[in-house]
């Protein structure tokens, strides 16, 4: 592998930039193979069904494959590499014991009998109990596989709840704040709801008057992230929930920012009817370059009848089974349940990791986590204030949103600043979200970054702000020391190349 070197500005050290890697297909040669599975069996398949299309998968040896993916891995930034301050993503450290423990539950099929999976059921039952306690809710469904699927699940629950009260036909609207994650309105639309957006007030809260005038007998629910995507705790959260309930609607808690509340406050004590948990954020499970996650849905008792089935039942003798009949024979009636989102227990392998984390922290560790996350955000904000604008000036929770509007006027946008950060050796914060802050940079340091790292990150941000003043063109030109320079996303979308062109295969580019 050829190695280029980069010079880190203001440090002067030279570090190698990993070279790019050819595609698997370009490394392959016909006739190479790894002998991982050999079979001399003949398959009895009628000719009409046999594959006639060519199967031009790359042919490689194992050493080639190992180097290929090792080189690709070296092109990635990760939490194991360094600070990853993506706002609302909670990129905290992912403990390694969690991964090892998960492997204890790897060789189990979800269609095994409850009789051969008592450990799974015991663990899942305890996870449900712990999540209920942590969120202040009464019951939990482990089925949703990510936050967005949990939102959709919850809205189906809302729909079933209103249907039960004879109001399904009239309650056709979901309200979301203008600071909401895009998944909220998208989930509502998928669930057949119309979406109404309400604005935020001058302190970054939901505008209560706007909410009250949007509420009515046609509203099914309100989706609220708290702390919201500005990193701010809703100052009148109970009034908000009361207003929604007074209109006969339900309050959905988007738990994306639950890390701030860990051991600090519980959605169930604040008026929410339900909340989802992104365990790949709050409970430290690795996000795997975009997934997997898991999105347990925690609800108050009045929503329990509508939760997905099956449910786990614990017998007096300490044994477990599903509420399908005891012998797995005749599934019990669905009752008011919305049905099934994912068979059995969702992304169980992820949930085992979350459980391990919860057991490691315990009560005191959880409180410390929430408080340290809040402290880290406030500290980092204090360091950045001299150079960047703050959209809403009050103490944030676990994350905060600054604006690069000042820098934009000087010639470099939030995007440019984010790219310059890559040259400084840091991952960028979330940019251009929430939509209500111009040139937004949403920064979430998490509780696991030491003060030295927070200081180094702030120093990098301040250096960039200085450079914007003196040489904005240089910042617009960033990044220069990453494996690739800025990529042309416009052409990628206009002339999509979505797969390797296997020579001679119709349909390929």
């Amino acid at each position, binding site marked *: 592998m050829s190695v280029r070197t980069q010079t880190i500005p203001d440090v002067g050290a030279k570090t190698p930039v990993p070279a790019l890697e050819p595609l*698997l*297909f370009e490394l392959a040669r016909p006739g190479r*193979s790894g002998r991982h*599975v*050999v*079979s001399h*069996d003949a*398959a*009895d398949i009628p000719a009409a069904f046999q594959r*006639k299309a060519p*199967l031009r*998968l790359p042919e*490689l040896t*194992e050493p080639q*494959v*190992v180097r290929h993916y090792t080189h690709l891995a070296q092109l990635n*930034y*990760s*939490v*194991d590499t360094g600070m990853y301050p993506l706002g609302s993503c909670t990129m905290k450290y992912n403990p390694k014991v969690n991964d090892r423990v998960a492997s204890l*539950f790897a060789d*189990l*099929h*979800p*269609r095994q009998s409850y009789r051969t999976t008592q*450990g799974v059921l015991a663990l899942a039952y305890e996870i449900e109990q*712990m999540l209920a306690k942590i969120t202040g809710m009464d019951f939990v469904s482990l089925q949703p*596989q990510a936050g967005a699927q949990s*939102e*959709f699940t919850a809205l189906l629950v809302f729909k079933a709840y209103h*249907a039960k009260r004879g109001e399904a036909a009239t309650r056709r609207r979901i309200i979301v704040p203008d600071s909401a*994650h895009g998944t909220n309105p998208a989930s509502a639309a998928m669930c057949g709801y119309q979406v109404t957006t309400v604005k935020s007030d001058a302190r970054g809260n939901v505008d209560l008057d706007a909410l009250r005038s949007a509420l009515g007998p046609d509203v099914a629910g309100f989706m609220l992230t708290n702390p919201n995507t500005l990193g701010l*705790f809703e100052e009148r959260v109970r009034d908000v929930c009361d207003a929604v309930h007074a209109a006969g609607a339900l309050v959905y808690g988007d738990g994306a920012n639950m890390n701030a509340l860990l051991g600090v*406050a519980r959605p169930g004590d604040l008026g929410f009817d339900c909340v989802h948990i*992104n365990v790949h954020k709050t409970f430290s499970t690795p*996000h*795997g370059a*975009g*997934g997997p996650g898991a999105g347990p849905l925690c609800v108050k008792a009045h929503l329990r009848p509508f939760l997905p089935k099956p449910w786990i039942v614990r017998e007096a003798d300490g044994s477990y089974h599903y509420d399908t009949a005891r012998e*797995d024979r005749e599934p019990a009636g*669905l009752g008011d349940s919305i*049905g099934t989102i*994912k068979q059995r*227990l969702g*992304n169980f392998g*992820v949930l085992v990791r979350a459980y391990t984390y919860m057991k490691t922290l315990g009560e005191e560790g959880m409180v*410390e986590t929430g*408080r*340290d996350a*809040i*402290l880290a955000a*406030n*500290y980092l904000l204090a360091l950045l204030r001299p150079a960047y604008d703050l959209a809403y000036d009050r*103490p944030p929770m676990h994350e905060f949103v600054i604006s690069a509007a000042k820098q934009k006027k000087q010639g470099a946008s939030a995007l440019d600043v984010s790219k310059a950060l890559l040259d400084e050796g840091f*991952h960028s914060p979330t940019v251009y979200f929430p939509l209500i802050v111009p040139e937004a940079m949403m920064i979430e340091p998490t509780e696991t970054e030491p*003060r030295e790292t927070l200081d180094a990150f702030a120093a990098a941000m301040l250096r960039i702000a200085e450079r914007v003043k003196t040489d904005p063109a240089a910042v617009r030109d960033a*990044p220069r020391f990453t494996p690739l320079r800025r*990529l042309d996303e416009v052409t990628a*979308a206009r002339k999509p190349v*979505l797969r390797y062109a296997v020579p001679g295969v119709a349909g390929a580019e």
Partner: protein
Amino acid sequence: MGNNPYSPHTEADRAAMLERVGVRDIDELLGAIPNDARHPKLGIGPGLSELEVQAHLERIAKLNTTAGSGPFFIGGSIQRRYIPAAVPVLALRGEFLTAYTPYQPEVSQGTLQATFEYQSLMAELLAMEVVNSSMYDGSSATAEAAFMAVRVTGRHKVIVATEVDFTYRRTLRTYGRGPELEIIEVPTAKLASSAEGAACLIVQHPDAFGSLVDVRQIADAAHAAGALCVQVTEPHANALLEPPGALGVDIAVGEGQPLGITMSYGGPHLGIFACRESLVRQMPGRIAGQTLDANGTRGFVNTLQTREQHIRREKATSNICTNEALAAITAAVYLSLLGPEGLRAAARAGVARAHKLANRLAALPGCAIANDGPFFDRFTLRTEMGGWDLRNALIALGIQVEATASHYYAGAKQTGKEPAQANAKPYVGGRREGRDDVIVQCTELTTEADADALVDAVAQLTRSGETVAAR
């Protein structure tokens, strides 16, 4: 310091940080939280050391009977297959495992190229034009395929075969309650004649019971009626069977778990989602695409993002954000290690062992193979004992199979307008047309000894089965 072992802050750190913030205590930063709601008692117990937590989880894990601890024939969409040693070593590298969604492509080329390669490998395997970067699992991919067909055709009726994996049909019905779709289940044999007015026909091949299905004829019928054809597929089957892209299928979906991903009691797995290029702008989920950087060097980005929720909000093609990117990378590692011949070998082994085992079982008195026609790497065994009783008796002997009863239920019609009523029906009644059987799945991990054990056990049980039936 001390309570959270992953928190680096010493008391001195905290004091210095508080001073910089300008407060004396963290509590001063919590002013927006109602007083009575602050710091509730959780009641979750004290934290454990790593050693303690490992031992605790090992104790719980011992309560399970793992698939590998005895003859194991449960399969379907989730299969116990051989995972080469290099698969977890590579896919679980921290740079893949602990990265987020590749929002900054300049420092995420590993993820983006591996994803592009996954899309390319899967497109080749399925002979489909476009593959997305992943859905959650096979069941949600099937439901999203139905939603996509509804968007493409403007119709609201979905026809799904009863031989499609029952967990997929359950999820489809549950999803369908959102946009209030009409979802009608008919036997595969009646799919083609049910296409009128449908957004799509959903067929599984090989089906949940292992049978091979003439997909081309169903796709033709769908197209003649202006509907799309959705095929639920399994990755290994495509090494030997004509793939969806060669059968006229518009959207191919399925579970990618058999490609080197552990079963893990159901997840995290890999939702495969593929379609025609002409439909790509209606496709859900992230897609990696090739482009150039400012120096003209080839690179990869997430593309066609104007379909997605973070840009389009309520007008997005789906709400999906987090997906199963790591599973897609895992599948790509698996496919690149096995190559075409290794994949064919694994698939062939399953088929050959299933057929050999089926012949042996069918030779036993009172036993028959219940598949209507040719089958792939699993089959349905009918005995006088009944599926549930046989399955439970086999578990007692340390042999795990799946019974078919849960695959069937009456009242397969869901009208969007009355979801509660329609939804109650499918769970009523566990048997249909006397088909109370067991399903036997074979893979390259099925050994001769496993097969012997099953044959012996079935022979023994069905001999005494007459008494069971009489009682």
